[in-house]
């Protein structure tokens, strides 16, 4: 089914996608002329596939559940913010705060992202094939951020229990973020994420892992019985 944003209103298009009749077999949708509109494909909750042909504005695919969304273009601030499950694949670049606060699902970005990628992420897997800007994985709580390029200043500032895998250079680390030794389990996590993004698994050896030094937040494993 084709949805043309030049002909139909954004609200109408989103409503159509948000209220899929589960008995129908309509599973594949295409959106044309996104023209940088905000909140395209926000709040989808069914297992459908949507391809957006062009560049989108803010909060594209926000709060996504189950849907598989492909963007043939760039996305604005907050792509897949607060995503719960499903997949969002951006073929171009992403702006700030990609995958912000997202609880689950997979976000793949073929290009670069600007600052604060994965800010406060809570379980999402983000794979960026290019580089990320400053303050990425800021206060990241859970999930994995894979960066195939470089990272800007203050990577992983105030990070909790999320993992950062990076192949390129880190301009600087944020407070309480440190390099970790990758064990078999970590390697398996990275392997499956690279596979999801169709990246050669042999690249694993070129990645480093970063995580929390656990000195900043009020959790000390030695005191675990006290909590």
């Amino acid at each position, binding site marked *: 089914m084709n949805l043309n944003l030049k002909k139909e209103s954004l609200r109408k298009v989103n409503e159509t996608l948000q209220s899929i009749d589960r008995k129908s077999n309509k599973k594949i949708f295409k959106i044309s002329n996104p*023209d*940088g*509109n*905000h909140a395209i494909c926000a709040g989808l909750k069914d297992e459908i596939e949507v391809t957006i042909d*062009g*560049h*989108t*504005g*803010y909060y594209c695919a926000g709060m996504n559940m189950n849907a598989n969304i492909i963007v043939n*273009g*760039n996305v*604005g*601030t907050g792509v897949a913010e607060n995503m719960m499950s499903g997949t969002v694949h951006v073929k*171009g*670049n992403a*702006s*700030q705060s990609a995958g912000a606060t997202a609880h689950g699902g997979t976000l793949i970005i073929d290009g670069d992202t*600007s*600052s604060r990628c994965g800010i406060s992420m809570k379980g999402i897997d983000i794979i960026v094939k290019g580089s990320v*800007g*400053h303050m990425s994985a800021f206060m990241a709580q859970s999930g994995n951020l894979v960066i195939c390029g470089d990272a800007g200043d203050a990577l992983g500032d105030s990070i909790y229990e999320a993992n950062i895998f990076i192949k390129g250079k880190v301009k600087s680390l944020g407070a309480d973020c440190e390099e970790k030794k990758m064990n078999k389990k970590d390697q398996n996590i990275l392997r499956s994420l690279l596979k999801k993004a169709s990246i050669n698994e042999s690249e694993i050896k070129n990645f480093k892992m970063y995580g929390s030094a656990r000195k900043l937040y009020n959790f000390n494993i030695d005191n675990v019985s006290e909590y």
Partner: protein
Amino acid sequence: MCGIVGIYLKNKKYNSQLGKFLTGMMNSMATRGPDSAGFAIYSSEKKKKYKYSVCSNTDQVKEISKKLSKQVKDIKVKSISDHLIIETAMKPKKFIEILKNHDELSLVGYGSCIEIFKQVGNPKDVVKNFSLEKFSGSHAIGHTRMATESAITTDGSHPYSTGEDECLVHNGSLSNHNNLRRSLQKKGIEIKSLNDTEVAAGYISNGLIDKKSLKETLLDGLKDLDGFYTFISGTKNGMAIVRDEIACKPAVVAETKDYVAIASEFQAMAHLPNVNSAKIFEPEPGKVYSWGK
């Protein structure tokens, strides 16, 4: 919030459509700044002539023209909405003094190729009032304002111009503008309003007076201007953009072989020719990008 836009045409074939392009950009940014709007248009330089963009609070244009032509010989007055574009060979120092005797007129900007218009109201109405669509030129800069630092008045609207053929639009806010205003005023830079952006415009003028390039001045600004900002600055030769090191305030650039467009959001450029095949990127924090002759 505020919306900022700028467009620089590399290919002259689009010059006659400059106003049309900017109208689309401003209309789409109306949601980011519904309080007031303004724009600066750069067209070809008129040798030995100056254009003074003036906001008038009276509709008696003919009388004003008469009065002025008694004081200034070769004067040509064009009236658009509540603005007058006064063309004369008289040099700025002298003419600005004459304008000061006219309480009903306030100078918005001047130079050999710049024209500036700004007005309180929704940007969609403002661009209509000034018939922006009909303008042609080489480059243009626009602003839609959501007021934060000073009142919703024409004085508080962007673009700000504190020097010949200069202009500045700003998305963000500055926190050290009071101190900076005082020190710039001591150096002789005229700053009329209580607005933070006008201080930044004055800062740039001061740098240019000190024979620094626009790029150098903007780089110095990263140290001296405290606050959040994405600036687009225009001169008769072109335009530049800079974002502060934190880069909270958005900006997108789209560059094709024919033009360079800058906007707070991509949707402001979606109507531009071949934009989907343009090179699209976000300016990096603390880096100055410039385009021009």
